[in-house]
């Protein structure tokens, strides 16, 4: 039996311990904000926060999550998350929207670590998140805008 904290709540899982966290979230917890895009840590659509850092849930066996704390797009909060969401909405970042949960989870983590990121910081933190709609131009802008509002 695997026990972990999900968006602040105690959860257990007693299925196949190899099951990636992604499918535990989606199929068992019915938290579908976290997306599948590649299954091999190439696209970032499945990004969650595990014990405070970004993690590709598609390659994270649930067995390794025992005792950990998982935050998903449905549970992310705090001043960075609020600033990021506001900035995302203000300039309409999403197109199809499918990658955006992952983008936002990565962006929030970036701002938690680096409140005033440079373009290079953004490239470094966000290059693992593919957006096939190529909303990158606005993602970059929204991260800068979010950083500005947090400052002010």
């Amino acid at each position, binding site marked *: 039996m695997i026990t972990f904290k999900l968006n602040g709540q105690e959860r257990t899982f007693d299925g196949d311990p190899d099951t990636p966290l992604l499918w535990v979230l989606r199929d068992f917890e019915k938290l579908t904000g976290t997306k599948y895009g590649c299954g091999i840590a*190439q696209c970032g659509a499945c990004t969650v926060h595990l014990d405070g850092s970004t993690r590709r849930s598609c390659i994270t066996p649930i067995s390794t999550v025992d005792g950990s704390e998982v935050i998903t*797009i449905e549970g992310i909060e705090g001043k960075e998350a609020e600033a990021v969401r506001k900035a995302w909405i203000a300039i309409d970042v999403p*197109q199809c929207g499918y990658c955006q949960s992952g983008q936002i989870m990565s962006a929030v983590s970036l701002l938690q670590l680096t409140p005033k990121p440079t373009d290079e910081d953004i490239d470094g933190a966000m290059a693992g998140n593919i957006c*096939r709609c190529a909303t990158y131009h606005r993602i*970059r802008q929204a991260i800068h805008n979010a950083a500005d509002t947090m400052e002010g």
Partner: protein
Amino acid sequence: MTFNALTTTRRSFLAGAGLVIGFTLAPKVFSASALEGVQAGGDKSLSQINAFIKIGTDDTVTVLSKHIEFGQGPFTGLSTIVAEELDADWSQMRAVHSPADDKIYGNLAFGLQGTGGSTSIANSYDQLRKAGATARALLVAAAAAEWGVPAAEITVEKGRIKHAGSGKESGFGAFADKAATQTPPAEPKLKDPKDFVLIGQELPKLDTVSKTNGTAVFTLDITADNMLYAVVAHPDHFGATVKSVDDAAARKIPGVLDVKTIPQGVAVYAENTFSALKGRDALTVEWDLSKAETRSSDQLTADFAKLFGTDGHEAANTGDVEKSFGGNGVQTLEADIVFPFLAHAPMEPLDAVFIKAADGSVDVFNGAQFPTMDKKVTAQVLGLDPEKVRVNTQLAGGSFGRKAQFGSPYIAEAAAVFAATDGKRPMKHMWTREDDIRGGFYRPMYMHRMRGAIDANGNVVGWDQTIVGQSIMAKADLDETSVEGAANLPYVIPNLRVISHNVSLAVPPLWWRSVGHTHTGFAVETFMDELLQKVGKDPVEGRLALLSKEPRHMETLKKVAEMADWGSAVPEGRQRGVAVVKSFGTYVAQIVEVSTGDDGAPRVHKVWCAVDCGVAINPNVIKAQMEGGIGYGVGAVLFDAVTLGQGGKIVQSNFHDYRSLRINEMPAVEVAIIPSSEKPTGVGEPGVPPVGPAIANAWRRLGHGAVRRLPIVSIGSV
């Protein structure tokens, strides 16, 4: 939102509340028993009304979009048109997908209901203006009757109905029921475009908020109680079929329930996604390659080249091309350009959910780009009357053409997987990224042979282009999509010939964001650039001189040159390239600034983009589509190819070897929209075609030689 929450809304509709504009046929409703426990998003119950607009008693105005929303913006664009004529306030607007029905929701550009060819706005513009104006007239009539004042004295502004004389004022909701009993005007009066207050504004998109908090529901997110999860093992050769299956190991995987051979491959059914995937990995399948494509991409290229000079389909022939190449002092230029197969790779791989109701009818949930086609095919595969199939269109995680397929082969597979069960449990079928990259329905491989003639005065006098590749429309004769943009060359060249050869392969072809322009735009715009360079002409001035018959091309090209301050000094180590392409009625000109990156690959720093798409319905959406189209095009031209290796085996499988552009590779983009009062044209595709040739033109000017084979960065070198 759970189904319980939905029921309330549906009941309130069925109770007759509100005004419905369009075709108030008997509302089709979900079979509630079938959908118990279904998790869906948005006010999906509304999606089952055959209408264009519903005005609720709660003041909300819901537009039923006959076009699927996958990021290109129809929810916002269509709602803008309705809100404009209705004089609604933007904050009261909502949008949902309409049901599947060709009669009501047919795309006026191509008959059946469908989204594609960048037609959503163009084919809805008149239709929804009228619907909006009708709703407004009915609300005004209801208010006039209630207040006992002449309708002519009533004004509507930002969702408020007002009568100045009596000081009376109301929202829409209070009159929604009464409006439904008024007689609609035969010809509703439409606004003069100069009075538009919403069209042309940068309105926020209606679907943004749900896409920032995880609540937007895509097909993959639909879950039903007791649902099965299914995946299919596919061959790694096109045209291969199942010879034999050993499923013993797969059946031992905990959670795997069944394994069945279907025409498309071998289906594995399980209690959850991971068990299904594990089960599929454990299968041993032997494939019959007797009808498969066994040539490699290199062999295909060689076979394509053999067709040059043989009889093809003539797409254009003016003047005397052969003679123009033989004139005195004529210089000629020749080039063969090879284009690879391209996968669309939408972020959400193909997927569908099937639920059978007690009465035997079936609900399909999918990203339906051709919903009535999906309905027909599902009915065929399941052996049902089409009236027993309800297609529930969901938000889709991209498409780029992938979900618009004649004969709906993806849905045929998913339905076959469902048909092989007893239908008692709801079922989700999903493709993995590997299935997607290796699934065919690519932008076909093409080969172009280009010949150009320049006379002694430096004028381009002859253009001879031969195009070899699959016919996307499966035609035996000339397929216009193979030659669009070339046969109707915008440049005035006295002697022009365009020939097309169709080849047939077992690799299924499909349109890919901007269809024929993906290759014709590249061939035309790079070759023209080379011809101009050969005679020392400026790429912008040289093009303008040849565009005398095309004022909108000229205007767009001039605009982008002005934006980029064309002719000004470019930073050391960088070069600029330009291209202009008209596709789907929209004119786009782009200038790119490129350098050689540390890895030897092109580094695209900046793209300036001018677009003329007629009346700009929502500049915010238009700019977003240009930015996105540019990113999509840059990624493809730099990195992407699906190749067939020895024996025809598909080489690529996922994003590690079918590279997507990433944020660190995305250029800065600046977009300008040319003001226009022409009818609006689409923007989903036209941003793509110019960027590839513009990059290749800059790359050549950086001294790397002309690009004769795409992608520019060869596979394996990144």
